[in-house]
């Protein structure tokens, strides 16, 4: 149950983000109350992923104030209250890692240096694997899992820190329908536990019934904020790409020219 005396988990006033001197987000006001399931939607390049990355401090704000649980982001240290599920791809590396090991790394927010995992830590990790339905794959290498299963591993990793506030960046992208349904089941369980969830999605699919509120981004601004929308409504001309006559060949971002100078830092 949301406690009215507690500050809202996320409060962003007049937020702006610039990448390489180019404004990407402008004038974003966003408050996410505790326990809400918010879907952040919009076309490719509308700034929804950038907004989520700004909300967890991975992108510095060019302007505006961001408070997490009432604390300004510069002074925020309670990272154990936050769970982040990046876009798939961070699950594999140059050395094999088991599903259990990747999930256990999510427990780091609550571990001290040079201390082994306690029995309680191990119980939480098994529970996280249980929630995403991968308990039987704990000993397998992450690289041997399918894309949808890897996505669920990353969700379990965020769960292992027992956070109150989740940020998920496109968890359903490139995941087949069966896996999207089990993802929706996992997120439904989180919602029942009272977690606050901010989810970036191009399309909601089976997640639609969980959503309390939809925010649609367009051109780095919030174009719609209110009751959940059906998938097709998000792609109505008002919210769609800035030039609404779709060219079949147009796959680029709608406001960022695809030019990068050879000396500029990669992203």
């Amino acid at each position, binding site marked *: 149950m949301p406690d009215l005396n507690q500050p809202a988990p996320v409060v962003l006033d007049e937020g702006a983000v610039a990448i390489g001197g180019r404004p990407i987000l402008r004038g974003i006001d966003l408050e996410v109350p505790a326990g809400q399931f918010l879907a952040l939607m919009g076309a490719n390049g509308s700034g929804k992923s950038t907004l989520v990355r700004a909300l*967890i*401090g*991975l992108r510095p704000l060019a302007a505006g104030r961001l408070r997490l649980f009432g604390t300004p982001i510069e002074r925020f*240290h309670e*990272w*154990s209250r*936050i769970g*982040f599920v*990046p876009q798939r791809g*961070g*699950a594999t*590396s*140059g*050395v*094999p*890692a*088991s599903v*259990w*090991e*990747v999930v*256990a*790394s*999510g427990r*780091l*927010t609550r*571990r001290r*240096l*040079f201390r082994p995992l306690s029995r309680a830590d191990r119980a939480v990790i098994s529970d996280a694997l249980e929630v995403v339905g991968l308990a039987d794959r704990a*000993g*397998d*290498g992450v690289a*041997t899992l399918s894309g949808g299963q890897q996505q669920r591993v*990353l969700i379990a*990793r965020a769960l292992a*820190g027992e956070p109150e506030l989740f940020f998920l960046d496109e968890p359903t992208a490139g995941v087949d329908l*069966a896996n999207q349904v089990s993802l929706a089941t996992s997120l439904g369980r989180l919602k029942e536990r009272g977690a606050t969830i901010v989810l970036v999605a191009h399309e909601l699919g089976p997640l639609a019934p969980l959503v309390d509120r939809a925010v649609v981004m367009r051109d780095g601004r919030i174009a719609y904020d209110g009751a959940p929308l059906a998938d097709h409504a998000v792609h109505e001309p008002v919210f769609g790409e800035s030039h609404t006559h779709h060219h079949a060949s147009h796959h680029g971002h709608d406001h960022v020219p695809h030019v990068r100078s*050879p*000396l*500029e*830092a*990669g992203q």
Partner: protein
Amino acid sequence: MTFWELFQYPFMQRALIAAAFTGVAAPVVGTYLVQRRLSLMGDGIGHVAVTGVALGLLTGTSPTWTAVVVSILGAVAIEAIRARGHTNGDVALALLFYGGLAGGVLLSGLGGESSARLQQYLFGSITTISISDVVATMALATAVIVIGIGLAPQLFAVAQDQEFARVTGLRVGFYNVLVAVLAAVSVSVAMRTVGLLLVSALMVVPVATSQQLTRSFRTTLLAAMVLGAAASLGGLVLSAYLSFHATVAPGPTIVLLSLAGFAVTWPVGAWVRRRARLREPFPSVPARDHEPTEHTHQHGPDCGHVAVRHGDHVDYVHDGHRHAEHGAHYDEH
């Protein structure tokens, strides 16, 4: 003198101790470098360390300690260039590597040192190692092992996914520099065993070998440590045995033995992976009643249905059945 009498000599005992510590410590850091896909970083640091050795020879101080200092500076510089993420970062690294190597050769020439003296450090000279060098090797190797294993959860998380690690509140920049410093220390430690030009092999090859057969990070790390120790002790003993018949240097023997381990393991690993793939069960989709209705869908590479190679044709998984094109209609397979 027989082969077994060789082990009674203090120089051989010192060499065995140094080889054991180096062989265990080098793959610890190597595992994190391979995980970050920075396998050649050890090689780069080795080049920079040549300048450190030459500085030591020139000033009359212990080359081991000057190598530690210069290679730490070089490793931090490499990490700083890498962290800036410039697309031409590898060019900057190349400049540093060759600057280090050329500087070292030049400085040792200025100091009037023979090239044979420098060569001891370039290709290793474990049998001439002094007691103080053995002590330094033991201390530095122990530090690398304790930090590399004790901070394994943090180092693993940072190497696995930097952005996630940052959101868990870890100081990613600090851990990146820590890995660079550990790599620099391991390079200086392994310098006497296999030499600066071969040091990266002792860090990386055991990891490449162990991950042929492992599924988790933990077993990869531990197996690499065992393999590293086996290769460096085995290589040393083998070169001692062969030196009765020919001139066999320990450094290259250690590296070649390590590579031989990889050559033996790789086919086994490839076979195990292939077998695991074949055993992977066909996704069990509950078969629904399938009315043989009009099939208007045209299966193809981009249709979204799972494609399964079935002998001479391709089946598409469709509502729990496998459709195979047959003339104008689809058969159930």
